[in-house]
């Protein structure tokens, strides 16, 4: 396929992904808006007012970037994992496999689809957060870069999950038992300074720590980890996830018999 045809194929997958999550928006877009509103009310307003300052900001200001990141991570992940697993389950992934479209384009179609949902939800959640706090952005550039890289990383992770999944249980086990704990322990709700040294060190293995802190730096201008380290780690995790996804597609593992 020439470049133009590959582009057409990419846009076809991408558009199909957007259509899918817009069609079922009550399952894809609405839940995050509701959950995050609850978080804002409970942690930000009710409990937050008693916590006082964290990292030099009001608790509400501190927690909002983490919560936005949480929405981006879960949405980009779950979009790809449910959509790609769904296409495996219905057999419609074969529509792609029998066509001449390259594996890279297949991956990009799904990943960019997931990224777009992450971004859309991020916008919704940010708008909701404006009811609770004033948001001033420290660096738009960093915010945009972190958001794009993070949603790409977790869209890729969702893809890997989908390739391995054999049942609908398999696509909820990882989010429940791995992703959610990583998010909660990733410094969304607290500053790394508060952790005992041992747990602070353990946390350094958690990609969410870098994601949340890099984003918090973009919004507030403060971070528990150094920005270059955070970026470096996100790039490394993303590269690994990309390479592994391509490997899965190229080897045909679990997709071709």
């Amino acid at each position, binding site marked *: *396929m*020439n470049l*133009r*045809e*590959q582009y*057409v*194929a990419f*846009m*076809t*997958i991408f558009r*199909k992904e957007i*259509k899918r999550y817009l069609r079922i928006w009550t399952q894809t877009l609405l839940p995050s808006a509701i959950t995050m509103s609850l978080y804002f009310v409970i942690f930000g307003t009710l409990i937050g007012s008693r916590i006082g300052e964290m990292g030099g900001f009001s608790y509400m200001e501190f927690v909002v970037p983490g919560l936005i990141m949480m929405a981006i991570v879960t949405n980009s992940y779950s979009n790809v994992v449910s959509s790609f697993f*769904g*296409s495996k389950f*219905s*057999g*419609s992934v*074969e*529509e*792609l*496999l*029998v*066509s*001449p*479209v*390259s594996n890279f384009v297949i991956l990009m179609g799904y990943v960019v689809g997931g990224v777009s949902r992450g971004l859309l939800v991020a916008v919704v959640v940010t708008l909701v957060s404006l009811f609770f706090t004033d948001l001033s952005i420290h660096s738009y550039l960093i915010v945009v870069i972190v958001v794009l890289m993070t949603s790409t990383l977790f869209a890729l992770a969702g893809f890997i999950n989908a390739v391995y999944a054999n049942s609908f249980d398999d696509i909820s086990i990882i989010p429940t038992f791995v992703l959610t704990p990583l998010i909660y322990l990733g410094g969304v709700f607290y500053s790394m300074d508060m952790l005992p040294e041992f747990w602070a060190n353990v946390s350094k293995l958690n990609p969410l720590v870098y994601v949340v802190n890099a984003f918090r730096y973009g919004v507030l201008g403060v971070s528990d980890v150094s920005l270059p380290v955070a970026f470096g780690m996100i790039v490394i995790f993303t590269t690994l996830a990309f390479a592994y996804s391509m490997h899965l597609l190229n080897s*045909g593992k679990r997709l*071709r*018999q």
Partner: protein
Amino acid sequence: MIPALEIENLSKVYDNNFEALKGIRLRVEPGDFFALLGPNGAGKSTTIGIICSLVAKSAGKISVFGVDIDKDFPAAKRHIGIVPQEFNFNQFEKGLDIVINQAGYYGLSPGLARERAEKYLRELGLWEQRDIPARMLSGGMKRRLMIARSLVHEPQLLILDEPSAGVDIEMRRSMWDFLRRINAQGTTIILTTHYLEEAEALCRHIAIINHGKIVENTSMKELLRQLDREVFILDCVEKLPDNTHIDEFVTRRVDDHTLEVEVQKGQNLNAVFAALGLAGINISSMRNRANRLEEMFVNLVEGAA
């Protein structure tokens, strides 16, 4: 002439060590209407799956219109349209979207994709149903939707895996007419089936597959001729002359006292006896030789049941 499909020594061992294909050889000429007939579990879908990249082969070589799938699978895939045995579309999508998206995967521009989708949905009588989610279509409509989807990039080779499964008789006739029409327009067609009647109604050449091996590969005409033929073995009292010959019958002198006679449907055994009697040869006993093909068909039918 470059064959539409050439398969050499194709074998497949599944992960559980089951040997589904044991060295298959096939050649389908361009423009042909070809049947791959065999009972359930014979290896038909495995063969088709390998041709369209859904199953990885264990060994062998496949070329589609001269393009080796190991050298340039994307180019080979452009020549192939595939209608699988199981419904493999997203049941929640609309028929029109399914066909248009498939065109997109082949890189067809959106305008052309829509044009082609409309053309084939109309030809297959699905245009009225284009905006209905696929799960609400009848079995026959779903099958035709997959045919429309397989044609949207106008492949030279159309492969249908058991296209009649779950399609009622009337629908089957109109589907057959459609397939004959596009075959007449130049599309090479291969279909798998376990009904001889379906192969007979449509196909010019046929290969029979059983237990992962091609057991017969011939023209439809020749196959039917063989099926309609019985071979009798006559034990003769007198020595048969070296050049024993009976008008209008194919005979074979097995030894001095044994003669094999082929009798086609409609031919009369009395003529054989008369001719031999005239030559002064008496027949002491007679039995008919098992018809290999017929036996096979009995097995196939039992296997399919």
